[in-house]
Each structure stands twice: as C-alpha cells, then as structure tokens.
C-alpha cells in the first residue's frame, strides 16, 4: 500500500503590497502641491549633490596628475609651468592639525564641565551661549578678530614679520588658533551630547564603588563617549579644511610655505602658507593665478577629503569603528 502525498503547496500566497489607495487626482490642490514639493525637493537636492561631485570629478580627473600632488606651485605665465599643489596640501594638513590640537582640549574639557558639573547654572548658561556665539560668528569676522589680536606687539613673536619689523599677524599659529574656534563648537556639542546620553546608572555604579566624580569621568564616561568625540573631531576637521576666510586673512595665502626664523618646526608655525581652499580661490577665474585647470584639480582633492571625512563620520556614528562592545 502506498501513500501518495500530493505535491501541492498549500501555503497561502503572501504578498507584501498594500491595498488600494485613493488616487492623488481626487485630492485637494494644496495636498497635491505639498506632495509634489516634497518629492521634488528631495530629488532636486540629490541632483545638485550628484552634479557637484560628478562635475568636479570629471574636471578633476581631467586635470589631476599624480605629479601635481608632489610639485610645488610656481609663478609662470604658462599654465604648464605653474607647478603643483604640494604647498597648499601641506598647508591644509598642518593647519588642520594645529586647529584640532588647540580645539580638542578646550572643547572636551568645557563639555565635561557643562555636562558633569555645570554649576552654578547661570555660569553654565553663559558658557553655553558663549560657545553658541562662537559657533554663530561668520568665519570672516573671526578672521578679522584674529588679525586684530595677532597684530598686537605682544603677540608678534607668534607671527610672520616683514623686513622692516612690521607685524602682519599672519602665521600658521595665528590661523590655527582661529581655526580652533571654528572646530570647537561641533566638537563641544558632540562631546556634551555624548556625555548627556550616558545613562545615570552608569555614573551611580561608579559612585557606588567609591569613585570620585573626576575618576568616574576619566575612567568610565570618557571611554564610553569615544565615538562621539571622534565624530566631533571629524566634523571639526571638515570645517577647518573647508574654511577660506581665515586662510586669506591670517595665513597670508602665500604661494609657498614661508618660514620665519631659524628654529626648525617653530619657524614653520610662525611662517605663512596657503591651503587648498585658498589655492582654489587664487586659481579660479576670480583670483590672481587664474589657472582654472589647477583650481579644478585642487578642488577635486579638497572634495575627496571632505567626502572621505563625511564617510568617516557616518561610520563612526554607526559605531562600526570604535564600538566598545
């Protein structure tokens, strides 16, 4: 006797679709308009971003040569003899390093104070609004303020000095100091919000073990907000890299990195230079250099930097790089 099992799929057919919806053509005009705007705005922004990246990529790849990255810029009437972007590249990296090195301790320490101490509350409010004011100040105003400060005779040793002894208030250290103010707000906000997001029971657990507040901050809280701090640093770096006004006013926007004095490293900090942003400006049709191909190449490198940093922010934010688990 055989058993016949019919080879039938008796499961109900599943579908993920939704049921019938009302047709937009029956909607009110206002509703239709808002729906249309929402779609159009989202898609439009995608188009703009794509246009920037694709156009700069197209132009950049067209003019970017490996040699360009390692050649120093030069003055020439012929496009083919104006050299590369080595000096601006180094200038960008150096300025970023100085800016972050100054902003990091300031931002993290003040975020710790706000999030963990923050008393008296009127003082905390003042500190928070001060940082908001710094965050809201246009970079050109910060730059102007920096010029005013670093032209003071007392700060003259920090910056480039002309032959006659006149103080220009221009140097890597001067520009870096102002850049640190640009990088400070995002770094501060990221650290503060990270600390505020640490659950209270984590602090209580440490206090209950007989730890002081500062030991808790150092050993428990700061390690657990590492990824927030990393995000803040990355945001700060991308703001420094993208800034032009401070470079123009405080770094001198010189073609080459010029040193000042004879002490190695110090003379570099006191010297002037340029960054990719100022190089792009100079070589754009609006600038003095007017070598658009070079501008496109440098802009492409700049864009790559910023895109890479944005990618890094996303990665850190999703916790795949610094996850503590």
């Amino acid at each position, binding site marked *: 006797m055989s058993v016949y099992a019919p080879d039938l799929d008796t499961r109900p057919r599943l579908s993920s679709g939704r049921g019938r919806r009302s047709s937009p053509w029956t909607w009110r005009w206002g509703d239709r308009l808002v729906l249309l705007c929402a779609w159009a705005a989202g898609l439009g922004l995608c188009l703009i971003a794509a246009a920037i990246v694709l156009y700069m990529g197209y132009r950049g790849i067209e003019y970017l040569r490996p040699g360009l990255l390692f050649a120093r810029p030069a003055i020439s009437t012929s496009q083919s003899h104006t050299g590369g972007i080595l000096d601006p590249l180094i200038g960008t990296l150096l300025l970023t390093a100085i800016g972050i090195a100054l902003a990091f301790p300031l931002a993290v320490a003040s975020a710790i104070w706000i999030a963990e101490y923050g008393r008296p509350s009127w003082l905390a409010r003042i500190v928070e609004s001060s940082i908001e004011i710094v965050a809201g100040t246009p970079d050109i105003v910060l730059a102007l303020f920096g010029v005013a400060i670093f032209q003071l005779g007392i700060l003259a040793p920090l910056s480039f000095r002309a032959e006659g002894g006149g103080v220009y208030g221009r140097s890597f250290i001067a520009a870096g100091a102002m850049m640190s103010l640009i990088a400070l707000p995002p770094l501060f906000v990221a650290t503060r919000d990270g600390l505020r997001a640490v659950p209270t029971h984590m602090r209580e*657990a440490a*206090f209950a073990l007989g730890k002081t507040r500062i030991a808790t901050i150092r050993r428990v809280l700061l390690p*657990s907000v590492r990824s927030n701090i990393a995000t803040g640093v990355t945001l700060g770096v991308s703001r420094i890299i993208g800034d032009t006004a401070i470079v123009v006013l405080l770094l001198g926007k010189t073609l080459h990195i010029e040193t000042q004095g004879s002490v190695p490293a110090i003379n570099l900090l006191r010297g002037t230079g340029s960054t990719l942003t100022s190089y792009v400006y100079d070589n754009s049709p609006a600038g003095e250099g007017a070598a658009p191909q070079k501008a496109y190449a440098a802009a492409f490198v700049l864009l790559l930097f910023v895109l890479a940093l944005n990618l890094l922010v996303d990665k850190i934010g999703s916790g795949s790089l610094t996850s503590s688990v």
Partner: protein
Amino acid sequence: MHFVADKFDGEYEHSVPPVRTIVLDRPPVPVAPGVRERNPLREPLPSTTGPERLSLREISIDYGGVPAVKSVTMSIHQGEVLALIGPSGCGKTTLLRTLNRLTELTPSAARAGEVLLDGDDIHQLPDTTLRARVAMVFQQPNPFPMSIFDNVAFALREQSRKRPRRREIEPLVIDALRRAGLYEEVRDDLDRPALRLSGGQQQRLCIARAIAPRPEVLLMDEPCSALDPISTGVIEELIGELRRDLAVVIVTHNLAQARRVADKVAFMYLGDLVEYGTTADVFSQPRAARTRDYVRGAFG
C-alpha cells in the same frame, strides 16, 4: 585561610588597598547554574547574627518636601540578609540609597536622622571611603564598557594614590570573581568586553565588582528583577554565601525571593517602617494588618 591578606601584607602594601580577612578566603566553591551537588558550604546556613554593622536612627528623607521615608530606626547585622519589602514607591530604594549616601546626588533630597557604620556617622566619612565600605548592586546589570578584568579592578584601583599594576591586583580580581561565582565561566579570557556577557553573568560581574574591595555591607536594589529564573537562583545562592562576611540589605518586590534569601524582613509602606522581624515571623504571623494583607497578596 588568610591567603589573600597574607600575600599582600608586605610587598604591595602601598599600592593595593588593605583587604580584611573573611570566611570565604577558604578555597571557594564555584557556583554554576544547574550544579546542585551536596556541599556543606552551600547548605542553607542557620542565621548566625554577627556584629552590628549599620544602625539607622530616626532616618527621614524628603524629596522637595514630599516625605519618602519617615523616621525609620533599625539595625543591620553582619551574617544576616535583610530584605526590604513593600509596594512600589514606598521608600525602600530611597532608604537603601541613603545607606551609601547616593540620595545626596538628588538635589531635592533632604535628610534627617543619622546612620552609623560600625559606630561612625556615615555623613562624617568621606563619600569615597563610605562607598567602598558599603557597596551596592543595582537593578539593571550595569558593567562598564571595558573588559571583565578592568570592571572588577576598577573598584580596587585608584583607592590607592598610585595605580597598582595588573600583577598586583590580579589575585584580588580573581578572588572576587570566584566569590561571585563567575570565575569558572570567564577564566579563559578576562580581557573580553564585559558587555558581551549574558544578563545573569553581567549581574554577577557587578556583584564581583562590588565585593572586590571587601565591603562590610552590600546593598542590593532588586538585583534579580531583570534576570531569568536560573540566573536568579544562582544569585540567591550567592547571597546566602556572601552574608557570612557581609551585612546584606536587599530590596525586592518578589516575596518568594524575600522568603528564600532573607533572615530578617522589613516591610515598608508609604515611607513608614510598618514591621520588622525575622522572615518566619513576618510571613507566618505578621503583627500589623497591613503586613498581613501584603504578604498574603491582598494589595501591592
């Protein structure tokens, strides 16, 4: 019997906090889920009341003028487990957190009365000293985001001015993990992140962390309410062993658990200490009508 203390008396006396010698310094018995062989160390012990550790005198706590604990007086002895029972919002946790001065962190909290730890007013002790002597385990397992070793070592380090080296505190860390019944499960890799442990293991890690500096009192705020029944059983067994060296105060909503682990029970209702007595008395012949209704499940 005194191996930990002896080992550290001479050589490392400056960088490792002094540890007191306790009963469990004898070779430990691992507590593992499902292991239930006969073992004299794990037989239910008769309640042997030790010296008085904590003495509460007329303790009252207000939160912004709203009374949470009303004039509670009682004493807590080593060798005993005291369970605080009662409905939610009746001041059990507040009372518990007063014993290591965690209520001070709430700005609106105000206090009257005094608590004596071995005869010293706890408000006269530096908070870090007090909290090293009166340890606490919380409702949610809350290991720090670091390795298992560092979690336990966290309590031991920094009590001393100089940061002790790993080699110096390793025996103390292992000892604490053993006493918390976790060592056998994690011995292969103490550098594993603590957050990778299961919930029950995390809670035992928190216990190990709390008992590592050898406190005199262990406060437990519903330590099993976030755990499964097997982990709960392991921890209850552990509490039975720990009480020989410590005064244990446990807040619990689980009356069956109070009956299982506690030697003394204090019933709190709306901030008042309604009844205090041995577990058998409170559960079988409560004096107050409120207590009778509560332990019989009429309310709460």
